[in-house]
């Protein structure tokens, strides 16, 4: 019984704290600022990754980077932080229309990682690059 009381009180405290963080507006306004920022983020995904070509979403929600070997990294907003993946054979890219604007929807193939929508200048080229990208075989 005592445990149930403690558990319920803790659960309520958790919900109140999360609600408070939401009310304070914490964790907003994170954006990929520019190509240099995207490069820094890609370097965190694959140490030493040097992009030859970079496309940053108009709204800073995501970025695609390609290196000399043809490898492609997707970096996307994750809450107030960023997360990325080296795209492999499971990756998918498709172009769709969002209120008259062509956007590139990229998926790493990892269900929980989610998809990223990019409003970029040359979505067709990047769709091809994503399809061609082959991650080195993993154990």
């Amino acid at each position: 019984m005592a445990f149930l009381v403690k558990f319920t009180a803790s659960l309520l405290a958790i919900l109140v704290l999360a609600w408070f963080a939401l009310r304070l507006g914490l964790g907003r306004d994170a954006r990929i600022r520019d190509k240099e920022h995207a490069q820094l983020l890609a370097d965190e995904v694959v140490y030493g990754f040097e992009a030859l070509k970079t496309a940053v979403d108009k709204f800073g929600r995501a970025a695609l980077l390609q290196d000399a070997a043809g490898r492609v990294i997707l970096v996307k907003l994750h809450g107030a932080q960023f997360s990325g993946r080296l795209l492999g054979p499971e990756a998918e890219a498709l172009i769709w229309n969002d209120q008259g604007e062509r956007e590139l929807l990229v998926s790493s193939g990892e269900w929980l990682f989610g998809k990223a929508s990019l409003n970029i200048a040359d979505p067709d080229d990047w769709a091809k690059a994503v399809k061609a990208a082959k991650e080195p075989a993993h154990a």
Partner: protein
Amino acid sequence: MPEFSPIDFAVPAFVLLVLIEMIWARRKRQGAYEPRDTLTSLAFGLGSSVTGLLTGGAVLVLSLWLYQFRLFDFGAEWWMVWWLWPLCFVLDDLGYYWFHRCAHRVRWFWASHVNHHSSQHYNYSTALRQSWTSFFALSFIFRIPLTLLGFHPAMILFVGAFNLIYQFWIHTEAIGRMPRWFEAVMNTPSHHRVHHATNPLYLDRNYAGTFIVWDRMFGTFQAETDSERIRYGIVRQLGTFNLLWAVFHEWVGIAQDVWRAPWRHKLSYVWRPPGWTHDGSRDTSDMLRAQWLERQAPAALETSEKSVPNENSIAVKEKPA
């Protein structure tokens, strides 16, 4: 010995400190908190207390059974021997250091401990992101030597709780550096920020619980430098707030790797460091640090040639520890 759980009394203070830190974040650093991340961290804490309750009894029974084989006997009223308490605290902290080091260097233990590192934020809610699977990972074995030495399991649990409480306040970016003497002996927010960082320079450093002296003694200390912007989390960030995935992802990874690996390499995916692969397709923290040093060396050498001849090529890049 009276029944007393220090953590029960500490929880209200934890909640209050989280609230205060959120207000600090609102004023100084809005990105220090993210509501979904906070919710995940706190749910981790709650789940951990449930699994702790479910498995704690088994650990206690085992410890009490082992206690009969103790090396030293401090008498029936062991709790009245005052000096045993601080001695037990210090030795338990030493044991914690080795547990923590193994938790980062052996993938089996890491699969449980990674829970605590899975947030990309570093705040008081992160401190509550505790493992659900530590019993399954057999983390309790690191406290067995103290029992065999003669410390009563109740005393070990008691000082261990205080150790855990101490570690709460160091999970923050709101506190810069403590006075020099304090930084020299105790684990602090600055030292522990380094521990939670994924920067190659900082990977697998500062394992201390309460006393940072263990890291200094065993060669795993790294001071926080102003030149390195800290990135928190794990090398391959989860990219999701899904609680169950955050809890079990490394166990799933081990199972997948063991399943796919050739027979002679299967066990290595359990006991070798996280990131180890038989074909070198992933990097361990040692490999990442080596790559980082390799990249730093030419730049540092260039700097030293221009400014301070004959100075260490790595050291010139960083501020002194």
